[in-house]
């Protein structure tokens, strides 16, 4: 196999924008300039008159030819508030956020489509805004969905363990609030695809940046009213995803445009559209009270987390559901008596909420870590001491957490101890005191986290479905199929490593195939790649190995347990010189099994084909209801220096110790860690989507939505521990999200420590230089 990376580094990648089809037309969306307005009329005459324009699709055509987007998560049955809305890919009646598409222009080339988009005349009647959470929840607020009672889409209430008992046992309680600003994952490649509706066969095929082709097929087929069996979705090279390419929404309009025009239709989303009409995340406010004993024993939590969803979030995106893990995750890695957590999701006139690395699991952990550090301060304990006191211990696994998570394995104290050793905490604590006298402000942050990974939740499209197929072809090469798209997280190399190892083959003969909707599965999301798809692939490879060994035994006239598979060869354990290559073996199995053929028993059992398709499901979820299977562990320690005149935070040292179970590929794991940490630093220091009072998104460019560059990204010191998960097939744990959780929390904690002289609570991310200066001004004013 030519390594994927070699292909990409030669400039031979084929991403969505590199796709070209004969007779291909181009689609451009027309976005609303208003955040909330009734659509009075749309005049497409001028646009249609432009030479080269093929058609213009408005909400009317979408309503006539498609169905509402299917609901992706529905918890109405639980007795919670969970409101749904009929939403079409393009609305016909009113727009609900700045940039929402009101029409799509299809033309011979992209430039003509853009010019025509400017000629589409839309008359709007502006409506009052529910522009932020506070306004949207206030009595009499403008309603985003007219037929809803109010703007609350979701209200979940959880009691874990015995919260009342926890508070009754407490020596003290402490109120803690925390806010995270609105952000987006913004991969460098926006979304894009080509749709080809074959009117002769009534089939639809699409190619593009699909993170979850099987889910996209379901949603696109349902919207178009075409049987899923007649739709195929192909993932091509994907320029980053991070959860933001899970949904299918504008893609439906591309498919419709192809159906109506009879042409292949390409759509590449401009970067600024991706920012304005793409998935957003975070934007939460926590208000909670934590109960504890004077010796630092943590007992309980009562908290409410308010989410600003933007427009409704069960069909464009699937992130109303992320309120669930947001409420569950504050238990983190500690022992508790009880928690009462409520999660509220409010719709506002902003772009929609969807997955981004973390998906709610991050929110509870960041909140509780901040809260625990407040408790430590109150009790004059160090942050490490309070954690060591409350950690679940290595001999307590599997540990049934109060929220039903079954924590699989780990050595939490060892991870923290290693991080403290690497960070040289004592030195920096001393240094902080020395510098304090010189008007310099050093801060040390310390955060620990587990990452719930490998999701399976009923009542939504993330139920845990997965399928893998491993087969040996007649020439002895191996195909690996699964639902795990390669989004830059090392899916291909990880699968190839697992299969090569189990079959005793060289990696060069393992071909991990592009993911299409032919393979069932919810794809790589919620760090499930190393849990579900990797387990399914490992299981398929093990079953295939069994077949190989059995058939080779038959061919070699030896018992199966004497067959050795090694380095691409198969041989009897006692006669290595009789080795045959996989190519020779496969040729015999498929075409020339002579002189006397395979053992008739193998043939009678229909067990001769070197092809295994299987599935895998968590061993803990069915009984416990644990919505995650593996829980990797991390400890982050950061040392920062804050310049109180400029408000700028400089990262002096960054240490990350990690235990994600068995490591399949160390480079891949390190890449996930380094990338995730830098994304978290971006969220902690710079990233924020800001809407003005008219509901206009102010930052739709990398020039004003700032993400870290190579200059801001620190050198990161990493160490790994490896405690295998007993629950995954390979012992590895999902780990793609842990780094973004710990890094954001630890940087904010370090800034708070740096500003300890001012008594500032850093609980409003991002901690931009402007905000830091404001906090210092306010604190200084109060102190005078």
């Amino acid at each position, binding site marked *: 196999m030519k390594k994927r990376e070699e292909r990409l580094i030669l400039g031979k*990648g084929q991403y969505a924008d590199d796709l070209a089809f004969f007779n291909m037309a181009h689609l451009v969306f027309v976005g609303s300039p208003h955040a909330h307005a009734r659509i009075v009329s749309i005049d497409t005459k001028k646009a249609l008159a432009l030479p080269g324009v093929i058609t213009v699709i408005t909400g009317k055509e979408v309503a006539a030819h498609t169905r509402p987007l299917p609901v992706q998560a529905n918890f109405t049955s639980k007795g919670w508030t969970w409101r749904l809305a009929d939403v079409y890919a393009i609305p016909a009646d009113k727009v609900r956020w700045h940039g929402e598409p009101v029409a799509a222009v299809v033309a011979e080339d992209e430039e003509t489509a853009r010019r025509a988009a400017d000629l589409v005349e839309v008359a709007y009647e502006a409506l009052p805004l529910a522009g932020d959470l506070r306004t949207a929840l206030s009595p009499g607020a403008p309603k985003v969905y007219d037929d809803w009672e109010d703007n609350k889409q979701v209200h979940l209430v959880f009691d874990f363990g015995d919260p009342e008992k926890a508070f009754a046992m407490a020596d003290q309680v402490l109120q803690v609030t925390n806010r995270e600003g609105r952000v987006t994952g913004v991969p460098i490649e926006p979304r894009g695809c080509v749709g080809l509706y074959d009117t002769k066969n009534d089939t639809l095929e699409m190619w593009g940046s699909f993170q979850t082709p099987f889910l996209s097929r379901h949603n696109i087929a349902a919207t178009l009213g075409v049987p899923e069996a007649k739709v195929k979705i192909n993932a091509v090279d994907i320029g980053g995803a991070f959860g933001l390419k899970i949904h299918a929404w504008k893609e439906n309009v591309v498919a419709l445009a192809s159906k109506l025009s009879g042409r292949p239709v390409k759509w590449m989303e401009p970067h600024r559209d991706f920012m304005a009409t793409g998935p957003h995340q975070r934007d939460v406010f926590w208000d909670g009270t934590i109960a504890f004993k004077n010796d630092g024993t943590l007992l309980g939590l009562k908290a409410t987390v308010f989410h600003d969803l933007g427009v409704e979030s069960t069909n464009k995106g699937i992130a109303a559901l992320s309120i669930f893990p947001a409420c569950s995750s504050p238990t983190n890695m500690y022992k508790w008596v009880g928690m009462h957590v409520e999660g509220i999701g409010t719709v506002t006139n902003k772009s929609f909420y969807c997955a981004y690395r973390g998906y709610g699991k991050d929110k509870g952990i960041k909140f509780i870590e901040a809260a625990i550090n407040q408790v430590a301060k109150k009790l004059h304990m160090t942050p490490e001491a309070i954690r060591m006191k409350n950690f679940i211990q290595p001999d307590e696994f599997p540990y049934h957490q109060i929220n039903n998570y079954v924590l699989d394995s780990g050595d939490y104290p060892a991870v923290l101890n290693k991080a403290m050793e690497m960070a040289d905490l004592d030195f920096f604590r001393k240094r902080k005191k020395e510098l304090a006298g010189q008007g310099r402000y050093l801060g040390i942050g310390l955060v620990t986290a587990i990452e719930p990974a490998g999701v399976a939740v009923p009542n939504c499209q993330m139920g845990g479905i997965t399928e893998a197929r491993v087969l040996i072809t007649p020439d002895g090469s191996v195909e690996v199929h699964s639902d795990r798209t390669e989004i830059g997280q090392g899916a291909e190399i990880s699968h190839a490593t697992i299969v090569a190892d189990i079959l005793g083959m060289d990696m060069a003969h393992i071909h991990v195939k592009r993911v299409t909707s032919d393979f069932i599965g919810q794809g790589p999301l919620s760090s499930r790649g190393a849990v579900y798809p990797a387990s399914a692939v490992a299981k398929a490879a093990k079953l295939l190995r069994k077949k190989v060994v059995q058939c080779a035994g038959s061919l070699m006239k030896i018992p199966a347990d004497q067959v050795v598979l090694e380095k691409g060869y198969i041989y009897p354990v006692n006669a290595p010189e009789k080795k045959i290559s996989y190519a020779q073996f496969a040729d015999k199995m498929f075409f020339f099994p002579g002189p006397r053929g395979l053992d008739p028993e193998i043939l009678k059992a229909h067990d001769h084909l070197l092809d295994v398709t299987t599935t895998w499901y968590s061993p803990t979820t069915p009984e416990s209801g644990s919505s995650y299977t593996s829980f990797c562990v991390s400890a982050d320690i950061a040392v920062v220096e804050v310049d109180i005149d400029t408000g700028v935070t400089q990262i002096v040292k960054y240490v990350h110790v990690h235990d994600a179970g068995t490591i399949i590929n160390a480079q891949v794991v390190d890449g996930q860690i380094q990338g995730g940490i830098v994304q978290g630093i971006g969220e902690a220091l710079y990233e924020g989507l800001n809407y003005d009072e008219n509901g206009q998104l102010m930052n739709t460019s990398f020039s004003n939505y700032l993400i870290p560059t190579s200059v801001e990204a620190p050198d990161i010191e990493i160490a790994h521990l490896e405690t295998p998960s007993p629950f995954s097939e390979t012992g590895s744990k999902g780990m793609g999200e842990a780094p973004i959780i710990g890094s954001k929390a630890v940087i904010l904690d370090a800034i708070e420590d740096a500003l300890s002289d001012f008594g500032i609570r850093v609980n409003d991310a991002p901690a931009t230089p402007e905000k830091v200066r404001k906090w210092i001004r306010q604190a200084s004013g109060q102190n005078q």
Partner: protein
Amino acid sequence: MQTIDITLTVNDQQQTLPVKSNDTLLEVIRDYLDLTGSKEGCGEGVCGSCTVLLDGHPVRACLTLALEADGCAVTTVEGLADEDTLSPLQQSFIDHGAVQCGFCTPGMLISAKALLDENPSPDRQKLRQALSGNICRCTGYAKIVDAVAHAARPESGCPDCHTKDSGGDHD
């Protein structure tokens, strides 16, 4: 729209091309010459995915008009390897695991090449500065910085590789 002929030497091959006055260099490279290695990320000159060398200097091809490039030599990612034999810089990216989603990689390679052509042994800080116009969302930059540092000083093994315990195979 009227076209004007321009002459470009792209990856050592001289070509005369009819271009429109509003065509960008990126459009000409990608759409006319079918060299799709250079990527359009933001399309407004910030992300750096479209970076190419114009007479040896890195430019944003998405903001450069094709007409401005008339008579110039252009190097794109496709011009770095000798057929399929990777340049040492490209090989170092592979060895260090510096390619994740791969979308920023072509622009990143071009900026790194421009740096090393001008300053064959930059220190880590200079190197980070030189790459700061190329945004990567996957890697956190560590492996990219390691890869370029190693390409600059291959004889010294991997002294600049920051992630000592990455265990990545360097063969």
